[in-house]
Protein backbone atom coordinates (compact mmCIF):
# COMPACT_ATOMS: atom_id res chain seq x y z
CA UNK A 1 0.00 0.00 0.00
CA UNK A 2 2.91 2.33 0.82
CA UNK A 3 6.13 1.72 -1.07
CA UNK A 4 9.35 3.77 -1.09
CA UNK A 5 11.98 2.93 -3.74
CA UNK A 6 15.41 4.53 -3.19
CA UNK A 7 13.82 7.79 -2.16
CA UNK A 8 15.97 10.83 -1.46
CA UNK A 9 14.80 14.29 -0.55
CA UNK A 10 17.19 17.20 -0.72
CA UNK A 11 15.87 20.62 0.27
CA UNK A 12 17.03 23.87 -1.28
CA UNK A 13 20.31 24.78 0.33
CA UNK A 14 21.60 21.22 0.10
CA UNK A 15 20.21 19.68 3.29
CA UNK A 16 19.40 16.06 2.61
CA UNK A 17 16.44 15.07 4.77
CA UNK A 18 16.10 11.56 3.36
CA UNK A 19 18.72 9.52 1.54
CA UNK A 20 18.05 6.32 -0.35
CA UNK A 21 15.07 5.17 1.71
CA UNK A 22 13.31 1.98 0.63
CA UNK A 23 10.55 0.09 2.41
CA UNK A 24 7.14 -1.41 1.84
CA UNK A 25 4.02 -1.38 4.00
CA UNK A 26 1.37 -3.92 3.09
CA UNK A 27 -2.31 -3.06 2.80
CA UNK A 28 -4.04 -3.27 6.15
CA UNK A 29 -0.77 -3.04 8.10
CA UNK A 30 -0.11 -0.71 11.03
CA UNK A 31 3.46 0.48 11.29
CA UNK A 32 5.45 3.00 13.31
CA UNK A 33 8.17 5.35 12.19
CA UNK A 34 10.68 6.38 14.84
CA UNK A 35 13.86 8.38 15.07
CA UNK A 36 15.24 11.44 16.80
CA UNK A 37 13.82 14.80 15.85
CA UNK A 38 15.25 15.93 12.54
CA UNK A 39 15.80 12.37 11.36
CA UNK A 40 13.40 12.84 8.46
CA UNK A 41 10.12 11.48 9.84
CA UNK A 42 8.09 14.54 8.90
CA UNK A 43 9.68 14.72 5.46
CA UNK A 44 8.72 11.10 4.83
CA UNK A 45 5.13 11.87 5.85
CA UNK A 46 5.04 14.92 3.58
CA UNK A 47 6.15 12.86 0.61
CA UNK A 48 3.22 10.47 1.15
CA UNK A 49 0.67 13.34 1.31
CA UNK A 50 2.37 15.09 -1.64
CA UNK A 51 3.19 18.10 0.49
CA UNK A 52 6.71 17.63 -0.87
CA UNK A 53 8.12 15.91 -3.94
CA UNK A 54 11.01 13.47 -3.97
CA UNK A 55 14.39 14.55 -5.31
CA UNK A 56 15.18 10.99 -6.39
CA UNK A 57 13.37 7.67 -6.26
CA UNK A 58 9.69 6.78 -6.30
CA UNK A 59 6.88 6.77 -3.77
CA UNK A 60 4.02 4.44 -4.69
CA UNK A 61 0.75 4.67 -2.79
CA UNK A 62 -2.10 2.25 -3.49
CA UNK A 63 -0.37 1.18 -6.72
CA UNK A 64 0.04 4.73 -7.99
CA UNK A 65 3.46 6.32 -8.50
CA UNK A 66 3.19 9.81 -7.02
CA UNK A 67 5.72 11.18 -9.52
CA UNK A 68 3.00 10.78 -12.16
CA UNK A 69 0.49 12.95 -10.29
CA UNK A 70 0.38 16.48 -11.62
CA UNK A 71 -0.65 19.56 -9.68
CA UNK A 72 -4.29 19.16 -10.65
CA UNK A 73 -4.34 15.59 -9.41
CA UNK A 74 -3.01 16.39 -5.93
CA UNK A 75 -6.43 17.03 -4.28
CA UNK A 76 -7.75 13.65 -5.44
CA UNK A 77 -4.64 11.96 -4.03
CA UNK A 78 -4.93 13.73 -0.68
CA UNK A 79 -8.51 12.51 -0.33
CA UNK A 80 -7.13 8.96 -0.31
CA UNK A 81 -4.67 9.72 2.48
CA UNK A 82 -6.01 10.78 5.86
CA UNK A 83 -3.44 12.96 7.65
CA UNK A 84 -3.27 13.65 11.39
CA UNK A 85 -1.03 16.34 12.83
CA UNK A 86 0.53 16.96 16.19
CA UNK A 87 -1.05 20.43 16.26
CA UNK A 88 -4.42 19.08 14.99
CA UNK A 89 -4.81 21.83 12.33
CA UNK A 90 -8.47 22.38 13.17
CA UNK A 91 -10.36 25.48 12.07
CA UNK A 92 -11.25 27.38 15.21
CA UNK A 93 -14.08 29.43 13.74
CA UNK A 94 -16.08 26.28 12.95
CA UNK A 95 -17.82 23.72 15.09
CA UNK A 96 -16.52 20.20 15.60
CA UNK A 97 -19.17 18.98 13.16
CA UNK A 98 -18.10 21.44 10.44
CA UNK A 99 -14.44 20.58 10.92
CA UNK A 100 -15.08 16.88 10.49
CA UNK A 101 -17.44 17.50 7.55
CA UNK A 102 -14.84 19.42 5.52
CA UNK A 103 -13.27 16.43 3.68
CA UNK A 104 -16.74 15.29 2.61
CA UNK A 105 -17.77 18.74 1.46
CA UNK A 106 -14.66 19.22 -0.68
CA UNK A 107 -15.39 15.81 -2.20
CA UNK A 108 -18.92 16.94 -3.14
CA UNK A 109 -20.83 14.54 -0.89
CA UNK A 110 -24.53 15.32 -0.45
CA UNK A 111 -25.96 16.97 2.62
CA UNK A 112 -27.72 13.98 4.21
CA UNK A 113 -24.75 11.70 3.57
CA UNK A 114 -22.39 14.28 5.16
CA UNK A 115 -24.55 14.31 8.28
CA UNK A 116 -24.64 10.56 8.53
CA UNK A 117 -20.92 10.02 8.02
CA UNK A 118 -19.77 12.86 10.28
CA UNK A 119 -21.87 11.53 13.14
CA UNK A 120 -20.54 8.02 12.53
CA UNK A 121 -16.94 9.32 12.62
CA UNK A 122 -17.58 11.38 15.78
CA UNK A 123 -19.24 8.38 17.36
CA UNK A 124 -16.11 6.28 16.71
CA UNK A 125 -13.85 8.79 18.44
CA UNK A 126 -16.37 9.25 21.27
CA UNK A 127 -17.23 12.89 20.62
CA UNK A 128 -20.77 12.63 19.25
CA UNK A 129 -22.10 14.77 22.11
CA UNK A 130 -19.63 17.57 21.28
CA UNK A 131 -20.54 18.09 17.63
CA UNK A 132 -21.78 21.64 18.22
CA UNK A 133 -18.78 22.67 20.34
CA UNK A 134 -15.95 24.82 19.05
CA UNK A 135 -12.49 23.22 19.07
CA UNK A 136 -11.11 25.83 21.47
CA UNK A 137 -13.46 24.57 24.20
CA UNK A 138 -12.09 21.01 23.93
CA UNK A 139 -9.10 19.49 25.72
CA UNK A 140 -5.92 18.58 23.79
CA UNK A 141 -6.88 14.92 23.63
CA UNK A 142 -10.38 15.75 22.41
CA UNK A 143 -9.00 18.09 19.75
CA UNK A 144 -6.73 15.30 18.55
CA UNK A 145 -9.72 13.00 18.34
CA UNK A 146 -11.57 15.56 16.23
CA UNK A 147 -8.49 15.60 13.96
CA UNK A 148 -8.67 11.82 13.71
CA UNK A 149 -12.41 11.88 12.96
CA UNK A 150 -11.71 14.38 10.17
CA UNK A 151 -8.95 12.16 8.76
CA UNK A 152 -11.11 9.03 8.64
CA UNK A 153 -14.52 10.51 7.76
CA UNK A 154 -14.18 9.92 4.02
CA UNK A 155 -12.78 6.43 4.62
CA UNK A 156 -9.32 6.80 3.08
CA UNK A 157 -7.38 3.57 2.55
CA UNK A 158 -4.27 5.12 4.12
CA UNK A 159 -3.95 6.99 7.39
CA UNK A 160 -0.75 8.79 8.37
CA UNK A 161 -0.14 10.54 11.67
CA UNK A 162 2.81 12.80 12.53
CA UNK A 163 3.52 12.68 16.30
CA UNK A 164 -0.20 12.37 17.13
CA UNK A 165 0.51 11.98 20.84
CA UNK A 166 3.31 14.52 21.06
CA UNK A 167 1.39 16.86 23.33
CA UNK A 168 -0.57 14.29 25.31
CA UNK A 169 0.03 12.57 28.63
CA UNK A 170 0.74 8.80 28.60
CA UNK A 171 -2.82 7.70 29.44
CA UNK A 172 -4.30 9.82 26.65
CA UNK A 173 -1.56 8.65 24.30
CA UNK A 174 -2.52 5.03 24.84
CA UNK A 175 -6.15 5.92 24.19
CA UNK A 176 -5.29 7.61 20.90
CA UNK A 177 -3.10 4.72 19.79
CA UNK A 178 -5.89 2.27 20.58
CA UNK A 179 -8.14 4.34 18.37
CA UNK A 180 -5.66 3.97 15.49
CA UNK A 181 -5.63 0.25 16.22
CA UNK A 182 -9.41 0.16 15.81
CA UNK A 183 -9.21 1.73 12.36
CA UNK A 184 -6.41 -0.64 11.44
CA UNK A 185 -8.58 -3.59 12.43
CA UNK A 186 -11.16 -2.64 9.82
CA UNK A 187 -8.50 -2.64 7.12
CA UNK A 188 -6.97 0.85 7.01
CA UNK A 189 -3.22 1.00 6.43
CA UNK A 190 -1.80 3.12 9.26
CA UNK A 191 1.62 4.80 9.48
CA UNK A 192 2.41 6.68 12.68
CA UNK A 193 5.52 8.77 13.26
CA UNK A 194 6.47 8.90 16.92
CA UNK A 195 9.59 9.21 19.03
CA UNK A 196 7.87 7.59 22.02
CA UNK A 197 9.70 4.24 22.09
CA UNK A 198 8.01 2.98 25.23
CA UNK A 199 4.58 3.47 23.74
CA UNK A 200 5.57 1.77 20.49
CA UNK A 201 7.07 -1.11 22.45
CA UNK A 202 3.83 -1.65 24.34
CA UNK A 203 1.79 -1.85 21.12
CA UNK A 204 3.98 -4.61 19.66
CA UNK A 205 3.81 -3.43 16.03
CA UNK A 206 6.52 -3.29 13.38
CA UNK A 207 8.52 -0.10 13.16
CA UNK A 208 10.96 1.73 10.91
CA UNK A 209 13.81 3.75 12.36
CA UNK A 210 15.25 6.78 10.65
CA UNK A 211 18.62 8.27 11.54
CA UNK A 212 19.89 11.36 9.75
CA UNK A 213 17.70 10.64 6.79
CA UNK A 214 18.66 6.96 6.45
CA UNK A 215 16.74 3.86 7.41
CA UNK A 216 19.17 2.28 9.82
CA UNK A 217 20.31 -1.30 9.96
CA UNK A 218 17.48 -3.75 10.32
CA UNK A 219 15.01 -1.18 9.19
CA UNK A 220 11.93 -3.26 9.89
CA UNK A 221 11.62 -4.38 13.47
CA UNK A 222 8.81 -5.86 15.38
CA UNK A 223 6.83 -8.90 16.14
CA UNK A 224 5.22 -9.63 12.77
Amino acid at each position, binding site marked *: *MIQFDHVSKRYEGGFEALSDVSFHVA*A*GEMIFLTGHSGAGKSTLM*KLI*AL*LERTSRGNVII*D*GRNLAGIKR*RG*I*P*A*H*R*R*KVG*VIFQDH*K*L*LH*DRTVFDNVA*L*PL*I*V*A*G*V*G*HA*EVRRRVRAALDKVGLLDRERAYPITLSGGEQQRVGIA*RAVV*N*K*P*PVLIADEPTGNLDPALSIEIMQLFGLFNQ*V*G*VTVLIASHDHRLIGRLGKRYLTLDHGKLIDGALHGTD
Partner: protein
Amino acid sequence: MARTRGGAKESGPGILGRLVAWAGHHGHSLLSTLGRLSRAPFATSMTLGVIGIALALPASLHLFVDNVRAVSGNWDSAMHLSVFMKPDTAVADAQSLAGRLRARPDVHETRVIPPDQALAEFRAQSGFGDALDALRENPLPTVLVVVPGGSLTSPGQLQPLIDEIERAPAVDFVQLDTQWLQRLFALVAIAQRTILVVALLLGIAVAVTVGNTIRLDIQNRRQEIEVTKLIGGSDAFIRRPFLYTGFWYGVGGGLVAAVLLGIARLALEGPVARLAGLYGSNFTLSGLGAGGFVGLVAVGALLAWAGSWIAVGQHLDEIEPT
Protein backbone atom coordinates in the same frame (compact mmCIF):
# COMPACT_ATOMS: atom_id res chain seq x y z
CA MET B 1 -3.99 -4.75 -3.05
CA ALA B 2 -7.18 -5.34 -1.19
CA ARG B 3 -9.08 -2.23 -0.36
CA THR B 4 -11.04 -3.62 2.49
CA ARG B 5 -12.70 -0.43 3.58
CA GLY B 6 -13.10 0.99 0.12
CA GLY B 7 -11.52 4.08 -1.29
CA ALA B 8 -12.72 7.33 -2.73
CA LYS B 9 -15.21 5.61 -5.02
CA GLU B 10 -17.14 4.01 -2.22
CA SER B 11 -20.93 4.54 -2.21
CA GLY B 12 -20.80 7.26 -4.85
CA PRO B 13 -24.11 9.12 -4.88
CA GLY B 14 -24.30 9.10 -8.69
CA ILE B 15 -24.00 11.93 -11.19
CA LEU B 16 -27.34 13.50 -10.24
CA GLY B 17 -26.51 13.39 -6.55
CA ARG B 18 -23.12 14.98 -7.19
CA LEU B 19 -24.70 17.67 -9.35
CA VAL B 20 -27.18 18.46 -6.58
CA ALA B 21 -24.34 18.56 -4.04
CA TRP B 22 -22.31 20.79 -6.38
CA ALA B 23 -25.19 23.21 -6.92
CA GLY B 24 -25.87 23.10 -3.21
CA HIS B 25 -22.30 24.05 -2.48
CA HIS B 26 -22.47 26.97 -4.92
CA GLY B 27 -25.67 28.20 -3.30
CA HIS B 28 -24.11 27.76 0.12
CA SER B 29 -21.00 29.72 -0.97
CA LEU B 30 -23.17 32.48 -2.37
CA LEU B 31 -25.07 32.90 0.89
CA SER B 32 -22.24 32.23 3.32
CA THR B 33 -19.99 34.83 1.64
CA LEU B 34 -22.83 37.33 1.97
CA GLY B 35 -23.17 36.40 5.63
CA ARG B 36 -19.43 36.77 6.18
CA LEU B 37 -19.48 40.25 4.61
CA SER B 38 -22.44 41.34 6.74
CA ARG B 39 -20.60 40.26 9.90
CA ALA B 40 -17.94 42.91 9.20
CA PRO B 41 -20.25 45.83 8.40
CA PHE B 42 -17.69 48.62 8.78
CA ALA B 43 -14.98 47.13 6.57
CA THR B 44 -17.57 45.99 4.04
CA SER B 45 -19.28 49.38 3.79
CA MET B 46 -15.91 51.13 3.36
CA THR B 47 -15.09 48.89 0.43
CA LEU B 48 -18.58 49.23 -1.03
CA GLY B 49 -18.32 53.02 -0.69
CA VAL B 50 -15.07 53.14 -2.65
CA ILE B 51 -16.45 50.90 -5.38
CA GLY B 52 -19.73 52.82 -5.44
CA ILE B 53 -18.00 56.18 -5.91
CA ALA B 54 -15.68 54.77 -8.56
CA LEU B 55 -18.70 53.45 -10.47
CA ALA B 56 -20.89 56.51 -9.87
CA LEU B 57 -18.39 58.98 -11.33
CA PRO B 58 -18.30 57.73 -14.93
CA ALA B 59 -22.00 56.81 -14.75
CA SER B 60 -22.94 60.37 -13.72
CA LEU B 61 -20.79 61.88 -16.49
CA HIS B 62 -22.49 59.57 -18.94
CA LEU B 63 -25.91 60.68 -17.71
CA PHE B 64 -24.83 64.33 -17.98
CA VAL B 65 -23.84 63.90 -21.62
CA ASP B 66 -27.04 62.00 -22.31
CA ASN B 67 -29.06 64.88 -20.94
CA VAL B 68 -27.06 67.46 -22.91
CA ARG B 69 -27.70 65.44 -26.04
CA ALA B 70 -31.39 65.28 -25.27
CA VAL B 71 -31.48 69.06 -25.04
CA SER B 72 -29.36 69.74 -28.13
CA GLY B 73 -31.25 67.08 -30.05
CA ASN B 74 -34.37 69.24 -29.73
CA TRP B 75 -32.49 72.22 -31.13
CA ASP B 76 -31.17 70.10 -33.90
CA SER B 77 -34.64 69.27 -35.18
CA ALA B 78 -35.51 72.97 -35.06
CA MET B 79 -32.69 73.77 -37.48
CA HIS B 80 -33.75 76.16 -40.20
CA LEU B 81 -32.41 78.31 -43.06
CA SER B 82 -32.77 82.07 -43.27
CA VAL B 83 -33.04 83.11 -46.93
CA PHE B 84 -32.28 86.84 -47.33
CA MET B 85 -33.89 88.29 -50.50
CA LYS B 86 -32.15 91.01 -52.49
CA PRO B 87 -33.22 94.54 -51.47
CA ASP B 88 -36.21 95.84 -53.37
CA THR B 89 -37.53 92.32 -53.99
CA ALA B 90 -41.27 92.42 -53.84
CA VAL B 91 -42.93 90.45 -51.08
CA ALA B 92 -45.00 88.73 -53.77
CA ASP B 93 -41.83 87.41 -55.44
CA ALA B 94 -40.66 86.05 -52.09
CA GLN B 95 -44.03 84.41 -51.61
CA SER B 96 -43.90 82.70 -55.00
CA LEU B 97 -40.39 81.37 -54.19
CA ALA B 98 -41.73 80.16 -50.84
CA GLY B 99 -44.55 78.37 -52.65
CA ARG B 100 -42.10 76.64 -55.00
CA LEU B 101 -39.86 75.58 -52.13
CA ARG B 102 -42.74 74.24 -50.11
CA ALA B 103 -43.59 71.87 -52.95
CA ARG B 104 -40.20 70.16 -52.57
CA PRO B 105 -40.09 66.92 -50.57
CA ASP B 106 -37.02 68.01 -48.56
CA VAL B 107 -38.72 71.16 -47.28
CA HIS B 108 -41.05 70.92 -44.36
CA GLU B 109 -42.29 74.47 -44.00
CA THR B 110 -41.65 78.00 -45.24
CA ARG B 111 -42.53 81.35 -43.80
CA VAL B 112 -42.17 84.83 -45.34
CA ILE B 113 -41.19 87.72 -43.07
CA PRO B 114 -41.87 91.01 -44.90
CA PRO B 115 -39.51 93.94 -44.09
CA ASP B 116 -42.23 95.78 -42.16
CA GLN B 117 -42.84 92.86 -39.85
CA ALA B 118 -39.11 92.27 -39.38
CA LEU B 119 -38.62 95.91 -38.46
CA ALA B 120 -41.50 95.79 -35.98
CA GLU B 121 -40.05 92.66 -34.34
CA PHE B 122 -36.59 94.17 -34.22
CA ARG B 123 -37.93 97.38 -32.72
CA ALA B 124 -39.78 95.45 -30.05
CA GLN B 125 -36.92 93.12 -29.13
CA SER B 126 -33.77 95.18 -29.54
CA GLY B 127 -34.63 98.39 -27.70
CA PHE B 128 -33.17 100.47 -30.55
CA GLY B 129 -36.56 102.02 -31.31
CA ASP B 130 -35.34 105.64 -31.23
CA ALA B 131 -32.34 104.90 -33.43
CA LEU B 132 -34.58 103.16 -35.95
CA ASP B 133 -36.85 106.18 -36.05
CA ALA B 134 -33.88 108.17 -37.28
CA LEU B 135 -33.66 106.04 -40.38
CA ARG B 136 -35.53 107.36 -43.33
CA GLU B 137 -36.29 104.02 -44.86
CA ASN B 138 -36.49 100.37 -43.74
CA PRO B 139 -33.02 98.81 -44.27
CA LEU B 140 -34.22 95.24 -43.72
CA PRO B 141 -34.77 92.86 -46.66
CA THR B 142 -37.58 90.37 -47.02
CA VAL B 143 -36.60 87.14 -45.30
CA LEU B 144 -37.79 83.66 -46.08
CA VAL B 145 -37.53 81.08 -43.29
CA VAL B 146 -37.17 77.52 -44.62
CA VAL B 147 -37.53 74.54 -42.28
CA PRO B 148 -35.99 71.47 -43.91
CA GLY B 149 -37.68 68.06 -43.90
CA GLY B 150 -37.13 65.68 -41.04
CA SER B 151 -34.64 63.50 -42.90
CA LEU B 152 -32.12 66.32 -43.18
CA THR B 153 -30.51 66.70 -39.81
CA SER B 154 -26.86 67.66 -40.28
CA PRO B 155 -25.52 70.85 -41.85
CA GLY B 156 -23.68 68.78 -44.46
CA GLN B 157 -26.88 67.20 -45.70
CA LEU B 158 -28.42 70.61 -46.12
CA GLN B 159 -25.72 71.95 -48.44
CA PRO B 160 -27.36 70.91 -51.79
CA LEU B 161 -30.64 72.59 -50.75
CA ILE B 162 -28.75 75.75 -49.77
CA ASP B 163 -26.88 75.83 -53.09
CA GLU B 164 -30.10 75.47 -55.03
CA ILE B 165 -31.90 78.24 -53.17
CA GLU B 166 -28.92 80.56 -53.65
CA ARG B 167 -29.18 80.09 -57.44
CA ALA B 168 -32.59 81.77 -57.46
CA PRO B 169 -32.09 85.31 -58.94
CA ALA B 170 -34.00 87.16 -56.19
CA VAL B 171 -31.98 85.56 -53.39
CA ASP B 172 -29.13 87.54 -51.85
CA PHE B 173 -27.70 84.83 -49.58
CA VAL B 174 -28.74 81.88 -47.42
CA GLN B 175 -27.61 81.60 -43.84
CA LEU B 176 -27.52 78.42 -41.83
CA ASP B 177 -26.81 79.61 -38.36
CA THR B 178 -25.77 76.28 -36.87
CA GLN B 179 -22.07 76.76 -36.33
CA TRP B 180 -22.56 77.00 -32.57
CA LEU B 181 -24.58 73.78 -32.72
CA GLN B 182 -21.76 72.06 -34.59
CA ARG B 183 -19.32 73.27 -31.96
CA LEU B 184 -21.59 71.92 -29.23
CA PHE B 185 -21.70 68.55 -30.97
CA ALA B 186 -17.92 68.53 -31.18
CA LEU B 187 -17.68 69.33 -27.48
CA VAL B 188 -20.13 66.57 -26.63
CA ALA B 189 -18.05 64.15 -28.69
CA ILE B 190 -14.92 65.15 -26.74
CA ALA B 191 -16.81 64.78 -23.48
CA GLN B 192 -17.92 61.30 -24.50
CA ARG B 193 -14.39 60.27 -25.34
CA THR B 194 -13.17 61.70 -22.03
CA ILE B 195 -15.83 59.76 -20.17
CA LEU B 196 -14.72 56.60 -21.91
CA VAL B 197 -11.16 57.14 -20.69
CA VAL B 198 -12.31 58.04 -17.17
CA ALA B 199 -14.65 55.04 -17.09
CA LEU B 200 -11.82 52.77 -18.20
CA LEU B 201 -9.48 54.07 -15.49
CA LEU B 202 -12.11 53.90 -12.76
CA GLY B 203 -13.13 50.44 -13.94
CA ILE B 204 -9.54 49.34 -13.44
CA ALA B 205 -9.64 51.04 -10.03
CA VAL B 206 -12.70 48.97 -9.07
CA ALA B 207 -11.01 45.73 -10.13
CA VAL B 208 -7.81 46.67 -8.27
CA THR B 209 -9.70 47.69 -5.12
CA VAL B 210 -11.64 44.46 -5.00
CA GLY B 211 -8.52 42.47 -5.89
CA ASN B 212 -6.64 44.04 -3.01
CA THR B 213 -9.50 43.43 -0.58
CA ILE B 214 -9.65 39.81 -1.66
CA ARG B 215 -5.87 39.54 -1.30
CA LEU B 216 -6.14 40.65 2.35
CA ASP B 217 -9.02 38.24 2.83
CA ILE B 218 -6.86 35.42 1.48
CA GLN B 219 -4.05 36.36 3.89
CA ASN B 220 -6.49 36.40 6.80
CA ARG B 221 -7.84 32.98 5.91
CA ARG B 222 -4.46 31.45 5.27
CA GLN B 223 -4.93 28.66 7.79
CA GLU B 224 -8.32 27.71 6.39
CA ILE B 225 -6.88 27.54 2.88
CA GLU B 226 -3.95 25.43 4.07
CA VAL B 227 -6.19 22.96 5.86
CA THR B 228 -8.57 22.76 2.91
CA LYS B 229 -5.68 22.02 0.55
CA LEU B 230 -4.40 19.45 3.02
CA ILE B 231 -7.59 17.43 3.04
CA GLY B 232 -7.89 17.45 -0.73
CA GLY B 233 -9.89 20.59 -1.55
CA SER B 234 -9.48 21.40 -5.24
CA ASP B 235 -8.33 24.82 -6.42
CA ALA B 236 -11.84 25.51 -7.73
CA PHE B 237 -13.32 24.71 -4.33
CA ILE B 238 -10.92 27.04 -2.54
CA ARG B 239 -11.31 29.79 -5.12
CA ARG B 240 -15.10 29.78 -5.00
CA PRO B 241 -15.85 31.72 -1.78
CA PHE B 242 -13.36 34.44 -2.76
CA LEU B 243 -14.91 34.83 -6.20
CA TYR B 244 -18.38 35.05 -4.70
CA THR B 245 -17.12 37.61 -2.18
CA GLY B 246 -15.81 39.68 -5.10
CA PHE B 247 -19.13 39.28 -6.88
CA TRP B 248 -20.98 40.65 -3.85
CA TYR B 249 -18.59 43.60 -3.61
CA GLY B 250 -19.41 44.42 -7.24
CA VAL B 251 -23.16 44.08 -6.82
CA GLY B 252 -23.10 46.09 -3.58
CA GLY B 253 -20.87 48.75 -5.15
CA GLY B 254 -23.24 49.01 -8.11
CA LEU B 255 -26.19 49.52 -5.74
CA VAL B 256 -24.27 52.22 -3.84
CA ALA B 257 -23.47 53.92 -7.15
CA ALA B 258 -27.16 53.83 -8.18
CA VAL B 259 -28.15 55.39 -4.85
CA LEU B 260 -25.50 58.11 -5.23
CA LEU B 261 -26.78 58.91 -8.73
CA GLY B 262 -30.34 59.03 -7.42
CA ILE B 263 -29.31 61.52 -4.72
CA ALA B 264 -27.42 63.65 -7.25
CA ARG B 265 -30.45 63.71 -9.52
CA LEU B 266 -32.74 64.78 -6.67
CA ALA B 267 -30.31 67.56 -5.78
CA LEU B 268 -30.13 68.83 -9.37
CA GLU B 269 -33.81 68.48 -10.27
CA GLY B 270 -34.91 71.83 -8.77
CA PRO B 271 -32.18 74.01 -10.32
CA VAL B 272 -32.53 72.32 -13.71
CA ALA B 273 -36.30 72.79 -13.71
CA ARG B 274 -35.76 76.49 -12.89
CA LEU B 275 -33.26 76.90 -15.73
CA ALA B 276 -35.56 75.08 -18.15
CA GLY B 277 -38.39 77.33 -17.01
CA LEU B 278 -36.34 80.39 -17.88
CA TYR B 279 -35.93 79.04 -21.43
CA GLY B 280 -39.64 78.21 -21.57
CA SER B 281 -38.85 74.49 -21.80
CA ASN B 282 -40.37 71.63 -19.86
CA PHE B 283 -37.12 69.65 -19.96
CA THR B 284 -36.48 67.32 -17.00
CA LEU B 285 -33.33 65.41 -16.09
CA SER B 286 -33.44 61.79 -17.15
CA GLY B 287 -32.02 59.25 -14.69
CA LEU B 288 -30.53 55.77 -15.07
CA GLY B 289 -33.72 53.92 -15.90
CA ALA B 290 -34.18 50.19 -15.34
CA GLY B 291 -31.75 49.17 -18.08
CA GLY B 292 -29.08 51.56 -16.83
CA PHE B 293 -29.52 50.30 -13.28
CA VAL B 294 -29.13 46.67 -14.29
CA GLY B 295 -26.17 47.60 -16.49
CA LEU B 296 -24.45 49.51 -13.68
CA VAL B 297 -24.81 46.62 -11.22
CA ALA B 298 -23.75 44.09 -13.88
CA VAL B 299 -20.65 46.10 -14.82
CA GLY B 300 -19.78 46.44 -11.12
CA ALA B 301 -20.18 42.70 -10.55
CA LEU B 302 -18.14 41.87 -13.65
CA LEU B 303 -15.26 44.20 -12.74
CA ALA B 304 -15.17 43.01 -9.13
CA TRP B 305 -15.31 39.38 -10.24
CA ALA B 306 -12.39 40.01 -12.60
CA GLY B 307 -10.43 41.69 -9.79
CA SER B 308 -10.98 38.73 -7.49
CA TRP B 309 -9.94 36.29 -10.21
CA ILE B 310 -6.63 38.06 -10.58
CA ALA B 311 -6.05 38.23 -6.80
CA VAL B 312 -7.01 34.61 -6.28
CA GLY B 313 -4.83 33.48 -9.19
CA GLN B 314 -1.88 35.45 -7.84
CA HIS B 315 -2.07 34.52 -4.19
CA LEU B 316 -3.75 31.15 -3.80
CA ASP B 317 -0.80 29.31 -5.29
CA GLU B 318 1.50 30.92 -2.74
CA ILE B 319 -0.29 29.21 0.11
CA GLU B 320 0.74 25.58 0.33
CA PRO B 321 0.39 23.44 3.42
CA THR B 322 3.66 22.47 5.08
